[in-house]
């Protein structure tokens, strides 16, 4: 309620500053007052809407619209008010303070959401399950000796070895083949492969949950296409997701299915960048299409292959959703990132969860450093 008059203040400051008049003393004072009022208004709006957003009985659509408006307008209003506030300061001071307005919020957010938690997680990993006492490296010893965490480490390593290579191979093969089609069929075939990229891993899990659907023999028709084909060939139905160790492979198929599009699109643009004169010259020299691929195309896209591969390594290493939704890590399918969430979110063992997070972090760092370096080099050329 008390917000309306201060909102009007916003407008007056807006117009007066846009007018760009000289910084007269009276105007400066007016601006200070307005800026303070604007900040106060933001706080009041936030407080009022926060209580409305917490109201269990309110209309959800209104709440959602208010939340969106608040988030979107709020962040801009915040910067605007801060900038006005700084402008009200004496000029020599305001120019020194202004970078804080621009860079400060990002620094604060990064500090709160990445720097502090990362340090904190490392500390927690050396403490007991409730983070009450230091236990040294006990959590790490547990991780590397208990059979369930060892399984998850083994699986994660298998995932990282198998999935990126297969994904890149299929992506590259498809990108090479599709390059030989006409423009229009190329675009539509690519879209079909690429589309799973738009689907969440949870959605992909549902899609494949139906493919892998299982009814024990004598309990009705198989509604999963895999078991339907399998039983039509005269076999007994299989519960694909509980057959160790093959269930891991069936989970990997989902990620390969979802990520091939990514590999394909990036590799396809790399293939198109191979100079056509070189390709034609090799053709005239009598190179077969297969020779052409291995001797000309592949070497020129090798650096892109590495980029796609490292990206997939990171994605797969941090994979969580598919395992969590499909099997919950049962039947020997657990992976590190999934195990980490299970430890702290279900078992409330924060020490073990933090130790797994640190292992994840340490293992991913070299790959990330390579990726960021490469990216920096690429941006420098551009």
């Amino acid at each position, binding site marked *: 309620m008390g917000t309306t008059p201060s909102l009007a203040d916003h407008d007056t400051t807006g117009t007066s500053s846009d007018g760009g008049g000289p910084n007269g003393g009276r105007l400066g004072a007016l601006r200070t007052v307005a800026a303070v009022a604007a900040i106060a208004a933001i706080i009041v709006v936030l407080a009022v809407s926060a209580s409305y*957003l*917490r109201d*269990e009985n309110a209309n*959800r659509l209104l709440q959602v619209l208010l939340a*969106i408006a*608040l*988030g979107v307008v709020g*962040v801009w209003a915040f910067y*605007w008010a801060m*900038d006005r506030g700084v402008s009200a300061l004496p000029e020599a001071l305001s120019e*020194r303070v*202004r*970078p804080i307005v*621009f*860079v400060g*919020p*990002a*620094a604060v*957010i*990064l500090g709160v*959401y*990445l720097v502090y938690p*990362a340090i904190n*997680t490392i500390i*927690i990993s050396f403490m007991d399950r409730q983070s009450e006492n230091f236990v040294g490296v006990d959590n790490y010893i547990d991780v590397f000796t208990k059979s369930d965490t060892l399984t998850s480490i083994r699986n994660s390593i298998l995932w990282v070895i198998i999935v990126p290579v297969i994904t890149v191979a*299929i992506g590259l093969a498809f990108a090479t*083949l599709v390059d030989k*089609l006409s423009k229009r069929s190329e675009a539509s075939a690519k*879209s*079909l492969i690429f*589309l*799973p*990229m*738009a*689907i*969440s*891993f*949870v959605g992909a899990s*549902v*899609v494949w*949950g*139906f*493919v892998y659907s299982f009814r024990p023999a004598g309990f009705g028709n198989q*509604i*999963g*296409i895999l078991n339907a084909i399998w039983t039509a060939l005269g076999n007994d139905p299989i519960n694909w997701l509980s057959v160790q160790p093959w269930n891991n492979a069936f989970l990997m198929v989902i990620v390969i299915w979802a990520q091939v599009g990514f590999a394909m699109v*990036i590799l396809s643009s790399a293939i198109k960048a191979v100079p056509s004169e070189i390709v034609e010259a090799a053709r005239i020299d009598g190179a077969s*299409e297969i020779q052409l691929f291995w001797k000309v195309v592949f070497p020129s896209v090798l650096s892109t292959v590495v980029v796609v591969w490292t990206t997939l390594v990171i994605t797969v290493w*941090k994979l969580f959703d598919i395992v969590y939704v499909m099997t919950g890590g049962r039947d020997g399918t657990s992976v590190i990132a999934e195990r980490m*969430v299970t430890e702290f*979110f279900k078992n409330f063992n924060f020490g073990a969860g933090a130790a797994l*997070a*640190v292992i994840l*972090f340490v293992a*991913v760092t070299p790959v*990330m*450093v390579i*990726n960021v370096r490469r*990216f*920096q080099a690429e941006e420098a050329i551009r």
Partner: protein
Amino acid sequence: MTTATIAGAKKTGLARIVERWPVKTAVWLIAILWTIPSFGLLVTSFRPRDDIRGSGWWTVFPDVWDKAHWTLSNYQTVLSTGGFANAFLNSLAVTIPAVVIPITIAAFAAYGFAWMDFPGRHVLFALVVGLMVVPLQMALIPILRLYTRFDLVGSFPAVWLAHAGFGLPLAVYLLRNYMGSLPSSVIESAQIDGADHFTIFWRLILPLSVPVLASFAIFQFLWVWNDFLVALVFLGLEPRSQVLTVALANLAGNRGEAEHLLPAAAFVSMVLPMVVFLSLQRYFVRGLTAGSVKG
């Protein structure tokens, strides 16, 4: 082998066509294989409950035009009593600000890094870039504890700011590089005309940065909309506040009684990202290459 060599040696029009056929077939076989799982789910989502439970989706094909095979009731149930209309709204309420907030914060910071002179800006920027290596898993436990202490678990701003934090290093980095490459003469002449930094940023730099802003926005939109982990941990399982991915995972979790609703629910969660994705593919591909360094 031999045919390939001949085709390679002498490129007649006929040879090219003959050579294209196996390639064409292979491409379309893979494309169809890739589409079958989602296509099956799409067909399933429009089948009546007993059909879904009683037979595979491919059995509709002998007589596709029989109206008894098709129904919209799964979608109706999922949206009303299933709570997916609510979850859809929640996903919007999470995603839109979780895209706008990090872009805004990153854009201001990027401008600061690119066009403002202040002590320690190079060191600070290097630190931001370095933070790209920190996976979000490292942040979950401490942030959850922080949120629990301040009673923020389950609130939208809790998720917005978490996504802002996780997306910021990449966003600042991308935008800083882009803004830094804009001609300095533009900024200098604006400064001579008496424009302050805020005006230059708002009137000049932002409009010029639209391509990179769009790439990052689409990337972040798909990332947040499809995110399950952050939403699960910070927003939780409360039906009133849960987002689509969490609601869908829940539904998939108690398979037994709700199996026939899963396909419709899945498509409710996929429709918006698919539309965004298909209509803005071009920007997305550009964002993808950049996104490969997201931590």
